[in-house]
């Protein structure tokens, strides 16, 4: 089911959280809302869920063409996963997952046995078989996150909304869970919108990335587009390491080519101030000569650095590919 967000405004007192936001989330896609804190991404997600109301008269939220702006959160059919899981601590895992089914109106409520059946299906789906009688505090962070997901899926939501789903996990678990979520999404194929401030996460996971900043959308596109063709300097700087040249142009560390100073096609010469080799990669910091301020960061292969017999203090040449100028 597609989500259509049409010119949404949201203010908190004098503070503008969302400024005329419009966005299409295609059916079955996995879309990331990416931005620094305060960019409005979580507010937008909460408005889609119905946990927050857009400013009166501002715009509409459509699910599959139907206006849901006035539909309360509990009736929108959204699955919402909270950053800190928000599992009910006084209930078992099974009771947590069954909650949405238990509180349905009598007429629509499943029979007890059917609920039990569904809960064990979901536990299997999120690979937590056999943990139904445990309590949330007995589970690891990654397991709790999957319980939260199972609980959200139990009500067969039309869309899945995830607020910083991996924000509270440590680096290793984050990576595993990220891959798992991608596979999982491909299996169930549910329209999913998730919020993150981690560019790597957004680029690796999403079909569509929406970069937000200061209550506005900066750029929308595939991860490839966003990384290769940033439209603003903010997007450039936010998506990974980048060198800003004095004339306002940008260049990523891996785009700079190392050459000997006397070689042809050298745009800048400089002195190697720091050299760090790890595995097959090398990070080279170069302080440009001729009065340029600031250092340039270059990523090269270990082979090349060894071939050139590079050492700290050497003078070296840098070659830039053709560069574009960006609006700030």
């Amino acid at each position, binding site marked *: 089911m597609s989500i259509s967000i049409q010119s949404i405004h949201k203010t908190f007192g004098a503070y503008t959280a969302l400024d005329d936001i419009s966005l299409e989330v295609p059916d079955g896609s996995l879309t990331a809302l990416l931005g620094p804190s305060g960019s409005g991404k979580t507010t937008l997600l909460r408005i889609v869920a119905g946990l927050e109301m857009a400013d*009166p008269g501002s715009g509409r939220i459509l699910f599959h063409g139907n206006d849901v702006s006035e539909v309360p959160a509990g009736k929108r059919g959204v699955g919402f996963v909270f950053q800190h899981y928000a599992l009910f601590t006084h209930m078992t895992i099974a009771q947590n997952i069954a909650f949405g089914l238990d509180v349905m109106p009598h007429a629509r409520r499943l029979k007890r046995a059917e609920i039990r059946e569904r809960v064990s299906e979901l536990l299997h789906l999120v690979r937590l078989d056999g943990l139904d009688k445990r309590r949330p505090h007995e589970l690891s962070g990654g397991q709790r996150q999957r319980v939260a997901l199972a609980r959200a899926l139990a009500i067969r939501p039309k869309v899945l909304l995830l607020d910083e789903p991996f924000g509270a996990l440590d680096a290793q678990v984050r990576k595993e869970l990220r891959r798992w979520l991608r596979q999982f999404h491909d299996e169930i194929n549910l329209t999913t919108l998730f919020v993150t401030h981690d560019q790597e996460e957004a680029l690796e996971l999403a079909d569509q990335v929406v970069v937000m900043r200061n209550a506005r959308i900066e750029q929308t596109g595939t991860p490839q587009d966003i990384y290769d063709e940033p439209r603003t300097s903010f997007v450039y700087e936010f998506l990974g390491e980048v060198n800003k040249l004095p004339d306002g142009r940008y260049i990523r560390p891996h785009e700079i080519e190392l050459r000997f100073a006397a070689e042809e096609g050298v745009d800048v010469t400089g002195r190697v101030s720091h050299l760090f080799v790890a595995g097959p990669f090398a990070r080279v910091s170069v302080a440009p000569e001729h009065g340029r301020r600031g250092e340039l960061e270059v990523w090269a292969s270990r082979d090349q650095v060894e071939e050139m017999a590079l050492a700290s203090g050497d003078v070296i040449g840098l070659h830039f590919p053709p560069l574009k100028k960006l609006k700030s």
Partner: protein
Amino acid sequence: MHHRPATTESAPVRWLLIGLALLALSLFLLLPLLAVFVEAFRRGADVFFAALHTESALSAVRLTLIAAAISVPLNTVFGLAAAWTITKHRFRGRALLLSLIDLPFAVSPVIAGLVWVLLFGAKGWFGPWLAAHDIKIIFDLPGIILATVFVTFPFVARELIPLMEAQGSDQELAAVTLGANGWQMFWRVTLPNIKWGLLYGVLLCNARAMGEFGAVSVVSGHIRGKTNTLPLHIEVLYNEYQFSAAFACATLLGLLALVTLGLKTAVEQITHQRASRHH
């Protein structure tokens, strides 16, 4: 029309609940407070001031102040020592010590008086010895002080322990690494960090010390002009059907309560502001 957010009630429900709570609190709290002052002035300001300006009323005020002036500092020192022991150190029996400090909360004030009578009363364990040496504890000032100390025992410690527990020992450890000795650490690091909590504990301790009735009643002997504290004096007047005089004296303690609440709110505000400034 825009529907309300998912986590509040509709306006009618909200106002109904607020109304019920206001009703409960005004019937329950405001009305009694109001009654103290209305009853005190029922027969006019002259009667009110006359009741306060009797020899027995003044001596009751004096005795109340003396009892508080001795027992509050004692329990303040104890509260600091106990909180220091419990929050800055780990030792066996720590949990037991913690619950023993709370013990007086579970003991009736009457029993807090009774234990001293059993020890020092005429028929008590040390009664004959005290009589032989002409020392009076029960039905005299020492007994009143002992009873007050028992009842107000946990107040300062109870306020400080959670506060110091939450603050941890990092700053004290930093002071040690910088070469501070124990007293320097206490005066320059610990005390400034807990001063508002300490003040709050002292306020509550003082309010209870000045207002204590049951424990003091058991040990005082109700000797007018000699061993009557202010709360006991109020009882005597009330039982003699001098209602206006009783309520006139009660206004003094009512004002004490209001001042305590005012200071408490002020202290909370200060600590709240400081806490939010740190974030």
